[in-house]
C-alpha cells in the first residue's frame, strides 16, 4: 500500500484542522426556505450570544438528501457539531454505536421532563433512560385547508369537514375547479393516515400503528377508511396531480383548487400569500371530523466529540434551544407550536391557536407515525397507497390487505 501511505502523508501535511476554534459549531439542517431560514436565524442569534459561533450548514431536500451526508460525516470521523435528524427510529443505530452525545445531565438539570410537552416528544429522544436529542417544536399533519371564496362563488357553503368537502366535489368539477388537490409521493401517505385518524379514530390508529392490532387493521373500521380513500381517488383527475406538496397548496391559494389535506406547515404558504384564516381560508384540524393533533416535530442531535470545548458548546446550544425567548421567537417564524406551555404566544395566528388549544387539553394528542413504526415500513405503505390512488383497478379490499401485511411485517 505504497500509494496509500503517500497520499496519507500528503494529506496530513496540507489538510486544515476544521475546527480551530472549539466554540464554533457547524450545524447541519434542511431548513432552506424563507420562513425556515428566518427561524434558524433566531437560533443562530441566540447561540452567538452565548459566546459561541453558529456555522450554518444548510442542505436542502429534506431528510432524503441530508441523511446520507450526515451519517457519512459521522462515520468518516469528521462530524458536525449539531444536526437536525428525524426523531424516532432514524437515529437509533447511531446512538447504539455510541456516536451521539448523551444530554441526560442537562435534561435533568433543566427539568425538561416537566417543562416540555407533550411527553411523547421527549420520549422519542430518550433511549434506555438517556436523552440524546433536543425537541424544538411540534408539527401536526392532520389539517384540511379550504379556500372559502371558491366555495362561495360556486354557491356552496364552505365545508367544515371531510364529508362536506366530498359532497361539494361534483358541483365544483362542473365549474372546472379541482375539488381536492393532491401532490405525488408522500402526501398520498399523509392523506391516508389523516383519513385513518378521522374515520377510524385516534385510538384505532394508535392501536394499529403502535400496538400492531392486526384484527383491527383487517377489520371493518379500516375498511371504511379505504372506502373513503376510494371516494377521494374517484374525484381526483390524474392530470391535476402535482409534483410537490407546496404546488398542491398553491392551487388552493390561487383558487384553482378548493381544498387540500396537508400539515400545519401549509399555513405558512397562506400567510405568505396574505390570506387570513377564518376569512379567506379555513384550517380544519383532524379534517374537521374531530380536532386532533399528531405530534411530529423537529429535533437536534449532537454527535460525540473528543474535544471538551466542543462538548461544552453543544450543551450550551441544547440549553439555548429550549429557553422561553428562543422557543417563542423560533416557533413564530417557523409556524410550528412551541415545546413549552409557559410561553406567551399572543402573536400566533388563528390556525396555530387552534392547535395550541388542542395541545393544552391534551386528550386528543397522539404520537407521530415515525415514533410508532419504522420509516422503511411507512415508505412501503406509501407505495401501496400511491398505486391505489393512481390505478383505479385496485380494489379497496386489496389495498387494505396489502396495507395490513406491511404493518404485520414491520419490525417491532
Amino acid at each position, binding site marked *: 500500500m505504497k500509494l*496509500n501511505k503517500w*497520499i*496519507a502523508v*500528503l*494529506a*496530513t501535511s*496540507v*489538510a*486544515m484542522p*476544521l475546527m480551530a476554534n472549539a466554540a464554533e459549531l*457547524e450545524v447541519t*439542517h434542511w*431548513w*432552506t*426556505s*424563507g*420562513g*425556515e*431560514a428566518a427561524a*434558524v*436565524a433566531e437560533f*443562530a442569534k441566540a447561540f452567538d450570544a452565548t459566546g459561541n459561533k*453558529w*456555522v*450554518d*450548514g*444548510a*442542505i*436542502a*431536500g*429534506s431528510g432524503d*438528501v441530508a441523511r*446520507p*451526508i450526515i*451519517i*457519512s*460525516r459521522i*462515520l*468518516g*470521523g*469528521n462530524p*458536525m457539531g449539531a444536526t437536525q435528524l428525524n426523531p424516532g427510529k432514524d437515529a437509533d443505530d447511531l446512538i447504539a454505536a455510541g456516536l451521539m452525545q448523551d444530554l441526560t445531565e442537562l435534561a435533568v438539570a433543566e427539568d425538561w421532563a416537566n417543562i416540555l410537552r407533550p411527553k411523547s416528544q421527549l420520549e422519542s429522544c430518550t433511549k434506555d433512560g438517556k436523552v440524546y436529542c433536543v425537541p424544538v417544536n411540534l408539527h401536526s399533519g392532520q389539517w384540511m385547508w379550504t379556500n372559502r371564496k371558491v366555495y362561495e362563488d360556486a354557491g356552496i357553503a364552505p365545508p367544515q369537514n371531510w364529508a362536506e368537502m366530498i359532497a361539494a366535489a361534483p358541483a365544483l368539477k362542473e365549474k372546472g375547479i379541482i375539488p381536492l388537490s393532491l401532490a405525488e409521493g408522500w402526501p398520498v401517505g399523509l392523506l391516508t393516515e389523516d383519513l385513518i385518524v378521522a374515520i377510524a379514530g385516534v385510538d384505532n390508529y394508535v392501536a394499529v400503528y403502535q400496538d400492531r392490532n392486526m384484527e383491527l387493521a383487517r377489520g371493518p373500521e379500516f375498511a371504511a377508511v379505504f372506502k373513503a380513500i376510494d371516494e377521494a381517488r374517484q374525484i381526483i383527475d390524474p392530470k391535476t396531480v402535482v409534483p*410537490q*406538496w*407546496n*404546488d398542491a397548496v398553491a392551487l388552493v391559494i*390561487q383558487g384553482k383548487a378548493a381544498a387540500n389535506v396537508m400539515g400545519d*406547515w401549509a399555513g*405558512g*404558504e397562506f400567510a*405568505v400569500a396574505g390570506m387570513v384564516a377564518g376569512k379567506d381560508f379555513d384550517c380544519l384540524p383532524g379534517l374537521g371530523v374531530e380536532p386532533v393533533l399528531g405530534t411530529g416535530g423537529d429535533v437536534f442531535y449532537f454527535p460525540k466529540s473528543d474535544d471538551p470545548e466542543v462538548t461544552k458548546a453543544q450543551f450550551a446550544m441544547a440549553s439555548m434551544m429550549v429557553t422561553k425567548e428562543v422557543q417563542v421567537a423560533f416557533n413564530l417564524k417557523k409556524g410550528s407550536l412551541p415545546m413549552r406551555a409557559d410561553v406567551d404566544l399572543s402573536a400566533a395566528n388563528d390556525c396555530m391557536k387552534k392547535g395550541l388549544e388542542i395541545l393544552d387539553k391534551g386528550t386528543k394528542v397522539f404520537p407521530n407515525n415515525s415514533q410508532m413504526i419504522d420509516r422503511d415500513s411507512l415508505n412501503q405503505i406509501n407505495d401501496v397507497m400511491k398505486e391505489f390512488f393512481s390505478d383505479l383497478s385496485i380494489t379497496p379490499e386489496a389495498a387494505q390487505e396489502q396495507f395490513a401485511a406491511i404493518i404485520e411485517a414491520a419490525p417491532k
Partner: protein
Amino acid sequence: MAMSSAVAIDPSGAKPKPLFAPGRVLIYSLLIVTSIYYLVPLYVMIITSLKDLDQIREGNIFIPTLKPSFDAWVKAWSQACTGLNCTGLAPGFWNSVFITVPSVIVSIAVASISGYSLAMWPFKLAEWCFTILLVGSFIPYQVFLYPLVIITREMGIYSTLYAVIFVHTVFGLPILTLLFRNYFASLPNELFKAARVDGAGYWRIFFRVLAPMSLPIFTVAVILQVTGIWNDFLFGVIYAGPTNYPMTVQLNNIVNSLQGVKEYNVEMAATILTGLVPLTIYFLSGKYFVRGIAAGAVKG
C-alpha cells in the same frame, strides 16, 4: 497534460462547400430541425429566468415576456439564500474550480495510461481488473458511498480535497479506461510497430505518437469529466468537507428548497449559470475535433 502538447494540424479535407448545393440544403435542413428539438427546453429556461413570478404564474411557458428582467440572474449569482448565508452561487464557484481541475486531470491521466497499458502492453492482471471495471460501471453510485467513506478515512484523507479527487478518479475510471483502451486499439497498428522498431519505449510512444493523434478522444474525455465533476453534488458534499463545498451545494439548495414561494426564475438562472462552465469548455475544445489527424501523423 497531453492536450497542451497539441500540434497544430490543418484540416486535410476540402474547405466547406457552398451553402446552396441541393445535398447541402438537405443536410442543413436536418441539422436545423434537430437543433430546434434541442433548443426548445433551453429557450423555456431562458425566458423563464427573465420573467418575474407573477408572469410565470399567469403566463404560458413558451411565450416570452415583454419586460425582461435580469433580477433573477443577479439573485442566483450573488443573493440567493441557503439557510443563513445569502451569498448566491458565487462563493462556491472557486471551490468547484479547485475540485474540478485536479479531478479532471488526475482521472484522465490515470485512465488514459491504464487504457494505453491495456491496449498496447497488456498483461493478465490488468485484463482481469479491466473486466471487473466494466461490470463495475453498472453499479449504482450510491452503493459505494459508505465503503468509500471508510476507505478514504483509512487513507487519512476523508473530508479533504484529496478525497473528492480520489472519488472522482474512481468513478471516472471504468468509462474512461474503456474509452482510451478502445480508441488506442482502433488506431492503425503500423504506427505502434514503427515506433517500436525505432526503439521508442512505453512513455515515448504514449506522449510522442499516440497522444497527439488522440485529441478528439481526449476532448470527449474532458467533456465527460468536466460535466460529471462540475455537476456533481453528492460526492462533493460528502467527501470534500464543508470548507470545500462546490457550487452545486448552493444550486441544490436553490432548486430543492420546498417551503415558501418557488422562485422558478431564480432556479432557471442558477441552472444556466452553473452550466456555463461546461458549456464554455465544450465550445472551446471544439477545435480539437479536426478531420484527418491520423493521416497527418502517419505522414508527419
